[in-house]
């Protein structure tokens, strides 16, 4: 069905009860994860075999993810996978802030974004890279405005990032100096600082970076470091256009 808009139809039937257009749908949990893997080029399409916990390093399709009846994978739950201990006639679609935090902060989303960035790196210039990123992630060419916005971001971001990090480093140094004699624990008190707490049964790989203790150190070691281009790709992956099917 077409997603074309018609003012006449909208006035008659704004809720689309008579199906004059396709309804926009958010992708399901499995579709979101598989799509992220697909656009990054990391998707392992292998079929069959046992299920495995979903972690940032696990690249097989989500249908091969382990589903625990006792405790559903946090990622699946977040994107409205039905509780496995009851029968579900259909799925909900919710849109809660934690879903957005998954895109913003999770190791998994970050990793796929960095891989997208790698895929476009061989293009001759920034504009061509942005065009390729749009074609990979959204399946279309960017408009002039979109291209401009992207170029602007990519021009400013690395410099700003550099300045900010330098500032943070020197601040940290200063803190270290003053805290040295007082107590060695000051580091851990810094927001976001210290070690990720070791977690246990509740650990859950896909939410690494969002939920404390969710990802294992060995998984984190495999992650690519964030780059400006990766963060730009992450923005495209976080867009409504990627998440929703028209």
């Amino acid at each position, binding site marked *: 069905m077409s997603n074309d808009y018609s003012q006449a139809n909208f006035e008659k039937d*704004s809720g689309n009860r008579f199906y004059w257009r396709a309804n926009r749908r958010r992708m399901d949990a499995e579709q979101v994860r598989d799509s992220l893997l697909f656009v990054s080029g990391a998707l392992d399409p292998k079929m069959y075999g046992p299920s495995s916990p979903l972690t940032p390093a696990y690249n097989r399709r989500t249908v091969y993810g382990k589903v625990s009846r006792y405790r559903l994978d946090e990622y699946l739950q977040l994107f409205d996978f039905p509780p496995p201990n009851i029968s579900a006639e259909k799925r909900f679609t919710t849109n809660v802030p934690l879903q957005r935090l998954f895109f913003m902060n999770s190791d998994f989303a970050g990793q796929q974004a960095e891989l997208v960035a790698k895929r476009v790196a061989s293009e001759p210039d920034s504009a061509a890279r942005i065009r390729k990123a749009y074609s990979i992630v959204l399946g279309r060419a960017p408009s002039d405005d979109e291209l401009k916005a992207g170029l602007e971001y990519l021009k400013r971001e690395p410099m700003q990032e550099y300045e900010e990090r330098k500032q943070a480093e020197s601040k940290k140094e200063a803190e270290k100096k003053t805290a040295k004699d007082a107590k060695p624990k000051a580091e851990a008190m810094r927001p976001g600082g210290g070690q990720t707490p070791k977690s246990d049964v509740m650990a859950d790989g896909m939410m690494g970076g969002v939920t404390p203790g969710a990802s294992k150190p060995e998984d984190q070691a495999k992650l690519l470091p964030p780059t400006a281009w990766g963060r730009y790709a992450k923005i495209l992956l976080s867009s409504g256009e990627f998440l929703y099917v028209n």
Partner: protein
Amino acid sequence: MSIERREIVFPHKAPTPVTRRDALCRIGNGFGMLAFAGLVGESLAKAGAVEGKDGSIEVRKLDHPAKAKRVIFLFMNGGLSQVDSFDPKPMLDKYHGKPLPGGSIATERKTGALMRSPFKFKKYGQAGMDVSELFPYVGECADDICFIRSIYTDIPNHEPSMLMMNTGHSQVGRPSLGSWLTYGLGTENKSLPGFVVLCPDVPTTVGPPLWNNAFLPAVHQGTYIADKVEKQTDGRLVGKEFDPQKLISFIHNEKFTLPEQRRELDLLEKLDRMQMAQEKAKDPQLEAAIQSMEIAYRMQTEAPDVFDIRKESEATLKLYGPGSTARGCLMAVRLVERGVRMVQVYYGKGDPWDAHVDIQMHRKNAKDSDQPFAAVIKDLKSRGLFKDTLVVCGSEFGRTPVQEIGAGAGGSQTGRDHNPFGFTMWLAGGGIKGGTIYGATDDFGFKVADKPVHVHDLHATILHLMGIDHTKLTYRYSGRDFRLTDVSGTVIQDILA
């Protein structure tokens, strides 16, 4: 809930009901003001969002004026013994060591003769309420508390009784009380989850199904937080190692600074809006996605703040005393203060109150809990929240007045078995008549003898106090309308203020 719903001509053909879309376009503040933080699909209409005459949206009309706006549920998981805490039985002293007249009652394990309580009782408050030496601090609050001495449940095992107390059903698969409350009432703070569960360690016997949303939309899932006390507490509530950042599920990303994220979001919103501008129709789903990105960003700074109990005064920290229950209780008060609908505080991992071997095991648990429980009442009062916060305290079941003698009792024969037939819970705060005792068990404290209160009745009363008619808060699933109270439940009118 009285819900006016506009007729949907072809419900099966309307994944996005017309009421919702129309309504959303008219909300002045945009999607973000809704308590549901932008639930899409049909859940909003199902959740009973109704359109006011002026085109505004009210989320859930109350069935009657609410006496309480939020609930703190203090859970002594494992089973508090009523005859050793709030329901004294002098007959146990008299008949100590003798068999229960009329023969024993089957519980989970093998039991023997009647056993007196090793704990002394004292009268507290104007009404002269009996509270044992286990709970002197709670005793001091007796005038604010209603003790229900006649609660009963169905099955003498932890799992089904935990589920019953939390979800109104003995088997896994029903939404939790807290889920029903957020489904019915929404939450008042969109930067925090509406239903929070605190337990110091990987939780209780049943675990996540106790705070599951089951068939309700996933947003009503309880958010579990392991508020473990770090080792170096120096006997205080907040040790040197305490870091609220480590507790919560929406943490700062260590890889990015906030300004970096801000710029990411700005570009994202710009791109999203460009895309939306190309389409002529407003799509509330996309608008909602942008809104929830903003909320997500805010959550990262607001959520750690609420758990940072270091910000409390020394006097407040002292009021609660040391330990994980104290910390959970203080966090619970801070959470409800910021508009969280329900907070549940579990005592600890497994079934710590499960005193099969020796009832003296209650001594430590009570020492950890007594002062913080009383502190909740006092602190809510000083924050002006007591009048409309409901505090519920209890276990999944009580314990037998007879000693346990099976192999599981370890040969000590000074413990008590599970008892679903009659036990005590207490309520305080919003809409509760303080200084009252409701119902009674028999002479030995085994079975309910007067004014029985099933768990369904307790749930019906909690919902009633929150402004909800328990028979009207329903959700259609699997071909029928489900309720927290299933097909039972009677509001206990006598305990209402």
